[in-house]
């Protein structure tokens, strides 16, 4: 910004808010217990709902008698699917192929159940206890049907059918090919050629993505008040705007009749990105009874019925020359949908299809995906949604290639990655990465980590046959974040746009309300967005407040998922703020008796270039409110709306390094050190960025070492509580060492990239690569996640037995 030397007052003397680790304004309410979670709400006359869930994975319902339950103390009503003819089918928003099969999915099941936890009846009573008690009086006869839980079995001919009417368990097939895209060569041909070329290698592996669940700590809760002119729903959701429109599109209520509010929401991670059956049920019952109703799930219900994630089988083929240069990649993916389709279920593996190529120059690529139904809870988005799965696939394969060619895992990556001068870079999967510098982050990470020293220690331990072996895990990644360009999403048959909206309301006393279409559930929007607006308008941080999460006040938006709040929503806020400045400019010119061309706006103040006199935007706001003396024809209002539809996704990158110790006598894996250097562009609030990275890393490490949703062959959920499903606690993880490099995004005016999903994306392959690096000398070549002690010990034991067998043979 150029300023004449004789006009010092025009210089922005404020410390910029962007880049400042400002403590969060959200904290005080949470620290003092003055938050308002949905389950905290009590309304006059409010009834409590409980739902009866199927104890079996697949059955026809031959008898469903609610007579006794309806007579129980405190019970106001009991409904089955047949008692609710007005219920509409639950929607899916992503039709990934023309032949995609969408099975019937109603708030209350009709006639059959498809997984443990499927809903068969709902009770309304005067207390939660009375409603729960009445569930036990509902008489259900289940005629059990054959069950299928393994997606590889499910896709075979003759396996039990989850939805017999569909005649198959295949939901959809979808593919991507560099020949069709015009982005590269024929992967199948390149792999065939490599197989017969002594100067090339072909690496084939089958990798599994364990089924996990977002496991937000606040259980889902819904309260519906049907007594006002607009029916109001409070819900612990990430997506109030999406819930409102999907409710209106599928259930008997019009959009203008419904207001949806996401009050304080306790975690999400994609788990609260859903229009749920429970939300529909509370609305339907509250409207029938004309009384407020509440439903709050228990943790066990959450584990059974809020969506799960990942659960893929990846059959990967990578061809490369002996110098390490990749020549082709083929991915054959089988993705478990569970029994039904949620909002994004079928689209999650598709998102991964664009990212299996990672940060590498790959000349030929083919991707084929089969989405399969099983008798399990549906899968959907979880921190990263498709991209962690893809990153795991390619980053595991890069290590396998390194082993095959006896190259250092960093070196084999370096030989393939996109060079800084090649950006913007059109990938083989058809995306355009805007910016990146992989060497810079990697070099910094290697130095922080002490890579060479650790390799030396690893050699010493191997030579000494130390029972505790050291492994070094590497992951260099790129994320596709900020779900976004509406045009692109349209091309993928995604059922909505990807824009984001903001309104900036200028209050007469000089204060500002920022209205955002995204909603926060821990990401610190109120702080970060206020920092952005403070810099844009030159208004003190303290004079700004955020309004979001209520369709009545934040009336337009696409909500929060896919790391889009800053890179999409933040740009809508910037756009609105800049419109405010432009609306204020002619008024400033009028007040200063100057031409608009002679004005500059710096530090919240309009002044005539080269002079010290000026008027602040806060003063202009008051004059606009008075409206006593405005230029002719100007609206007395500085408020502005902006809808931002980005031209591209956001591509954060980074390098993660894990030092893991594996006790070969017990199978226990301990992460000794974890270093990551990420490039997320310009940092708005470094403290919040660190927090997002730490949380993501912990979830990623947890997927690698601890967490797995498990079903028995009969489809019984055997990890149904937090006692069996191991969410890590403080002693299970370590102090991470994180840093950043800054390569500005070129696709938005602030140069910011997304951050929330990066840790969960990069950590699983870093950890698993580390575990295998520790154990390869013992002959261990693969371990599926989570790398639990028993699984690791068994892998070591199997390898030892196999080696012994070879020796004696």
């Amino acid at each position, binding site marked *: 910004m150029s300023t004449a030397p004789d006009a010092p007052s025009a210089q922005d003397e404020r410390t910029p808010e962007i880049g400042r680790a400002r403590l969060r304004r959200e904290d005080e309410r949470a*620290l003092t217990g003055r938050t308002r979670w949905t389950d905290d709400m009590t309304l006059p006359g409010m009834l409590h709902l409980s739902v009866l869930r199927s104890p079996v994975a697949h059955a026809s319902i031959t008898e469903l008698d609610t007579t006794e339950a309806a007579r129980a103390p405190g019970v106001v009503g009991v409904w089955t699917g047949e008692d609710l003819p007005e219920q509409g089918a639950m929607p899916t928003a992503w039709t990934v192929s023309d032949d995609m099969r969408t099975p019937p999915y109603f708030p209350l099941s009709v006639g059959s159940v498809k997984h443990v936890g499927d809903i068969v009846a709902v009770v309304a009573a005067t207390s939660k206890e009375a409603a729960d008690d009445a569930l036990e009086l509902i008489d259900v006869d289940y005629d059990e049907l054959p069950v299928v839980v393994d997606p590889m079995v499910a896709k075979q001919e003759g396996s039990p059918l989850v939805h017999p009417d569909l005649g198959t368990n295949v939901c959809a097939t979808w593919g991507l090919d560099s020949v069709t895209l015009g982005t590269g060569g024929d992967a199948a041909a390149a792999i065939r050629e490599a197989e017969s070329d002594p100067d090339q290698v072909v690496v084939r592996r089958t990798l599994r993505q364990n089924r996990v669940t977002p496991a937000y700590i606040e259980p889902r809760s819904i309260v519906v008040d049907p007594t006002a002119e607009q029916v109001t729903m409070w819900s612990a959701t990430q997506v109030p705007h999406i819930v409102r429109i999907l409710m209106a599109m599928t259930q008997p209520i019009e959009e203008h009749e419904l207001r949806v509010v996401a009050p304080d929401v306790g975690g999400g991670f994609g788990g609260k990105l859903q229009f749920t059956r429970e939300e529909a049920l509370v609305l339907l019952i509250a409207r029938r009874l004309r009384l407020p109703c509440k439903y709050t799930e228990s943790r066990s219900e959450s584990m059974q019925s809020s969506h799960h994630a990942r659960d893929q089988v990846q059959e990967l083929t990578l061809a490369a020359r002996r110098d390490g240069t990749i020549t082709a990649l083929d991915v054959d993916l089988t993705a478990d949908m569970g029994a039904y389709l949620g909002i994004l279920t079928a689209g999650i593996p598709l998102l991964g299809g664009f990212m299996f190529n990672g940060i590498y120059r790959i000349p030929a690529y083919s991707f084929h995906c089969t989405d399969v139904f099983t008798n399990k809870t549906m899968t959907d988005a979880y921190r990263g949604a498709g991209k962690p799965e893809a990153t795991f696939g390619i980053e595991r394969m890069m290590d396998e290639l390194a082993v095959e060619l006896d190259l250092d895992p960093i070196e084999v990556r370096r030989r393939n990655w996109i060079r800084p001068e090649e950006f913007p870079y059109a990938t083989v999967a058809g995306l355009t990465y805007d910016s990146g510098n992989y060497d810079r982050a990697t070099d910094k990470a290697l130095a922080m980590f002490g890579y060479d020293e650790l390799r030396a220690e690893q050699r010493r331990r191997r030579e000494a046959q130390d029972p505790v072996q050291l492994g070094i895990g590497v992951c260099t990644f790129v994320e596709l974040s900020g779900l976004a360009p509406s045009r692109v999403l349209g091309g993928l048959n995604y059922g909505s746009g990807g824009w984001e909206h903001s309104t900036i309301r200028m209050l007469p006393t000089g204060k500002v309300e920022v209205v955002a279409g995204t909603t926060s559930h821990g990401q610190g929007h109120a702080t970060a967005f206020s920092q952005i607006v403070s810099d844009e308008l030159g208004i003190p941080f303290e004079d700004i407040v955020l309004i979001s999460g209520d369709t009545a006040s934040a009336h337009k938006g696409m909500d929060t998922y896919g790391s889009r709040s800053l890179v999409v929503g933040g740009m809508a806020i910037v756009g609105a703020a800049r419109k405010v400045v432009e609306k204020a400019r002619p008024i400033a010119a009028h007040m200063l008796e100057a031409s608009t061309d002679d004005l500059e706006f710096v530090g919240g103040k309009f002044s005539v270039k080269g002079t010290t006199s000026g008027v602040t935007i806060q003063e202009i706001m008051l004059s606009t409110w008075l409206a006593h003396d405005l230029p002719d024809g100007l609206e007395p209002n500085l408020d502005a709306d902006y809808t931002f539809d980005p031209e591209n996704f956001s591509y954060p990158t980074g390098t993660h390094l894990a030092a893991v110790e594996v006790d070969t006598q017990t199978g226990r894996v301990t992460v000794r050190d974890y270093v990551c250097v990420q490039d997320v562009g310009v940092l708005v609030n470094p403290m919040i960025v660190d*927090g997002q990275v730490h949380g993501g890393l912990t979830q990623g490490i947890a997927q690698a070492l601890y967490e797995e949703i498990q079903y028995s062959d009969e489809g019984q959920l055997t990890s149904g*509580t937090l006692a069996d499903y191991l969410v890590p606690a403080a002693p299970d993880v370590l102090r991470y060492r994180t840093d950043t490099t800054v390569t500005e995004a070129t696709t938005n005016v602030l140069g910011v990239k997304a951050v929330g999903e990066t840790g969960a994306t990069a950590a699983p392959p870093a950890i698993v690569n580390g575990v295998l690096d520790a154990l390869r000398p013992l002959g261990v070549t693969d371990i599926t996640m989570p790398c639990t002690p028993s699984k690791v010990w068994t892998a070591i034991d199997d390898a030892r037995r196999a080696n012994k067998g070879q020796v004696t043979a």
Partner: protein
Amino acid sequence: MARITVTVDGMRFTHEVEPRTLLVHYLRETVGRTGTVVGCDSSNCGACTVLVDGESIKSCSVLAVQADGAEIETVEGLAAGDGTLHPVQQAFHEHHGLQCGYCTPGMLMRSVCLVRENPEPTEDEVREGLKGNMCRCTGYQGIVSAVMAYSQAARDEEVGR
């Protein structure tokens, strides 16, 4: 129904409660203190942790009738009457020890007890001391830093007194 009298954050309450009522539900629904929250049904998550006669306990794991006569401290009683944050709250604020805030009430109450039991904890002891409280957002790094800082602040206050 059973008649109980408890002190919650310095205020005395007498209520008739069903014998099966858990302390956490009594606090939330009868006393109306919703700062203490429920995260699970297996006493694993720790979100409902309160102090009962100075001991941190998971209020989903005791019955309200068992608390008869007890002095209960919840997150809503931590800050001073004028709104000044308790040192543990201040430390969580300064060290980014919370994101969504749902686990925070339990974390704070557990941390108060932890530092009272072990005024000079190592980082490992803090982590071990928090093992019954789950946080899904922070990865615990901010929380552990906050508890270390709080223990230092508590020691400084002792010395200064």
